């Protein structure tokens, strides 16, 4: 059989493999060991299947590939329309890459209601992949909302501390914000009779949607609010630290690694794709919010006494870079933003796993409880350092490439924004290195820490893929960028047209 026969169905296969696994899990007996192995097998299967995408992706082509378009519901006209371009391709692969690691990292830390945990995790994986591969707005919204329940349950059932507060806050913030997106989607459907992204984009560009010019500003905002809460963009970020601190490790990894990218991906695909004029008109204040997020997130991260909260605020700061890059409307800015999304997913996912391992051993995230951990846990410390430096943006690791591109894009559009954004890189070095010093260097101050076990084989298997990925992405970014860039260029076509019109006048 020719592998290309798989092309039309591969996306459905990747998306629904975890769900099928979750349904099978429902019927398996409650034997924890077998359930863990089974979930690992299913998530690895999804990962292997997803490798088909980068291998057979035609890198030079900008459009959507591996498309499948089938009518699902006749009224309203909903299609089961899947497809990926260079941006969503990698986000889908990022999801399948992180999930097996999440299974591994939860191997021993989840002891109660194990079956439900892995069912939720696999359902969440399906929903996350679905968000990135849907080309029908309805289907997109469907998966978008579907991520909400498993994630809220993971936080509320397996978290610690104020887990219920965190879960409800997470749920309500995203739910309320996405209602506005639903209203905007419904408006578009009421006027055009289609949910298809490509058809809508074409109709919007050709000016075939009635009342579009007067409503587009509001529609842009409807989409934008839903995405901004998810990113989270300052001042909608307050749910994030709570959710992260109380979430179980696997929840944090997927939350930071993938869930937040749903927001930035949505801005890239829908805010820019459907409303280029409004995106340009609103870019000013959005970039300012992104800059506030970068600097404010970093400053708050610096004073956090809690390790996980520190990483959470660093996410606010890093995602600020992504938004800044997207709303610079330059090729470098957009490619950089996409690259930061991937790099942040890998490195912050890794950092959350590391924090989780420490919690398993000591049941606290307080930085002052630690100190001098490099002596009892050398391998752990070395891994931590690689991922921490990747997050700082050290050249040759993955954080650098993306942030560099974003900043060069921001300079091209507005030099001042570039300068302010660049300070964010310095801040991130400050808080991460300082944190590293307090946790790992010096003498072991707390006697309990002297006897801590270094990471074992399973934990290494979970961690090292992220470290290796951080290194490979830093050394050979072109492997990713050469498929991202053609898609970015095609996204920017309406913007260059607008720019040339302005110049022409």
């Amino acid at each position: 059989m020719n592998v290309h026969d798989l092309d039309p169905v591969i996306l459905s296969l990747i998306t629904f493999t975890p769900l099928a696994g979750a349904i099978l899990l429902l019927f398996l007996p409650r034997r924890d060991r077998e359930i863990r192995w089974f979930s690992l097998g299913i998530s690895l299967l999804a990962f292997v299947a997803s490798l088909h995408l980068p291998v057979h992706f035609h890198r030079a082509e900008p459009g959507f590939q591996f498309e499948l378009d089938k009518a699902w519901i006749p009224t309203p006209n909903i299609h089961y329309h899947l497809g990926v371009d260079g941006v969503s391709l990698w986000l889908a692969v990022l999801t399948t890459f992180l999930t097996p690691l999440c299974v591994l990292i939860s191997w021993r830390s989840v002891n109660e209601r194990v079956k439900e945990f892995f069912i939720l995790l696999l359902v969440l994986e399906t929903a996350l992949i679905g968000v990135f591969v849907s080309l029908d707005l309805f289907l997109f919204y469907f998966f978008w909302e579907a991520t909400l329940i498993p994630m809220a349950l993971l936080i509320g059932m397996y978290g610690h501390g104020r887990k219920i507060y965190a879960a409800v806050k997470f749920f309500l913030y995203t739910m309320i914000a996405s209602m506005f997106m639903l209203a905007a989607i419904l408006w578009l459907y009421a006027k055009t009779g289609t949910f298809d992204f490509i058809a809508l984009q074409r109709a919007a560009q050709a000016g075939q949607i009635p009342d579009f010019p007067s409503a587009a500003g509001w529609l842009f905002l409807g989409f934008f609010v839903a995405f901004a809460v998810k990113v989270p963009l300052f001042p909608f970020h307050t749910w994030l630290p709570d959710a992260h601190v109380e979430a179980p490790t696997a929840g944090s990894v997927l939350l930071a690694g993938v869930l937040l990218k749903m927001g930035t991906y949505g801005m890239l695909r829908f805010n820019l794709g459907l409303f280029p004029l409004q995106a340009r008109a609103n870019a000013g204040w959005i970039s300012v919010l992104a800059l506030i997020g970068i600097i404010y997130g970093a400053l708050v991260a610096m004073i956090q006494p809690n390790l996980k909260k520190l990483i959470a605020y660093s996410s606010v700061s890093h995602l600020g870079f992504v938004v800044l890059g997207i709303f610079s409307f330059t090729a470098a800015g957009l490619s950089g933003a996409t690259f930061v999304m991937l790099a942040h997913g890998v490195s912050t996912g890794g950092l959350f796993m590391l924090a989780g391992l420490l919690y398993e051993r000591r049941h606290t995230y307080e930085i002052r409880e630690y100190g001098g951990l490099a002596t009892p846990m050398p391998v752990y410390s070395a891994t931590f350092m690689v991922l921490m430096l990747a997050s700082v943006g050290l050249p040759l690791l993955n954080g650098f490439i993306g942030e560099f591109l974003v900043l060069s894009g921001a300079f091209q559009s507005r030099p001042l924004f570039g300068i302010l954004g660049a300070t964010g890189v310095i801040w991130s070095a400050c808080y991460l290195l300082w944190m590293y010093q307090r946790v790992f260097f010096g003498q072991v101050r707390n006697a309990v820490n002297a006897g801590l076990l270094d990471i074992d084989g399973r934990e290494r298997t979970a961690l090292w893929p992220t470290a290796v990925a951080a290194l490979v992405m830093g050394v050979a970014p072109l492997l990713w960028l050469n498929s991202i860039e053609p898609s970015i260029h095609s996204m920017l076509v309406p913007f260059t047209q607008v720019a040339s019109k302005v110049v022409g006048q």
Partner: protein
Amino acid sequence: MCLRFHILITAITAVVILMSYEYMATQQIRAGEYYSLILLGAVGMCLMSSAVELVLIFIALEISSISTYVLAGFRRRAAISSEASVKYFLLGSFATAFFLYGVALMFGATGSTGISVIAQSLRAGNTSTLAFAGIALMFVGLGFKVAAAPFHIWTPDVYEGAPAPVVALMSTGPKAAVFAVLLRVLFEINAPGRLGLIWVTAALSMTLGNLSALVQHNVKRLLAYSSIAHAGYLMMAYAALPANGIPAVMFYTATYAAMNVGAFAIVSHLAGAGERYVTIEDYAGLGRRSPLLAAALSIFLLSLIGIPMTGGFFAKFYVFSAAFQNSLTGLVIIGVLNSAIGAYYYLRLLVVMYMKEGGQEIPIAPTPLALHAALAISIAATLYLGILPGRVIEFASRSVRDLTQ
């Protein structure tokens, strides 16, 4: 159109009877007339949804109402149940009087009580004040029956006092029938000035229902306010154009019936003898102690919130998009904001079930076969409407022709 409503009403009745067996046993109520009253009510509802003559509609309305008045007081030993019955009876009679008055005025204005004759007469340009007053009065009477604000005051008390399976019935069956009548009165007659009436009622019902539900501790009262809110969402569809509004109404009534009957089936099972365990706190730890019941209730609650994959999502979806197509942007925004508020109180119940451990745990009786069947039907309907709504909405769309020649 009547065929579709008959299917719905008989299905609701069947499921309610299935869940009543166990309830009657635990409450130690021995009463053969209970079942005959339910069936009598079902006759009234079916008649109501197929009648095309206002006096016949009135008679059908009375048949179904009288059976529910009696059923509401069936927990004879509980004072709260008798109170519910009397309250429902007094206010309900008032409302039917309004309806009858409206019918009389309509007769005065058009010289007929047949829906099609009235419709012709109005279409021919007879838009007298009398006709408008007739419509408004009928609307008041019917609005009372579907618990739409500002005629909703009776709902929480009656729902709290009446036996849980009866609440399951009266929050779905008679409502579905009255919504069918409203389709005739508002769409087929093409009532003059209906838009303003509906706009206000819909907005008020959604907002009052959801805001009041936020502070409830009793699950039955919570679901009562939620049913007021859902009546509000449903009302929105009447403000839309017939081609989109009619299927939206029918889809919503079917979905609401599936999820609400299902939720009440679980409430009545957990309530125990004398309906002692009906506060939200009583549900603590249900997710651990009875995973199947908790999972079933979660599906119904998620559907009531309107999460994708459940019928509740498409129900809201059709209503909102129908309203959008008639450019009722303001009403849609109120609806969208209300769905967000609504999410909170359903979520509270979910949170208690899965994330809290109970101080004193309520006894959970083993689930009998009939209840399993009732739940299976409700879950299957809720999920079917949520995943493959196409065929049902298609089926419902065929009624558009019956109502708008």
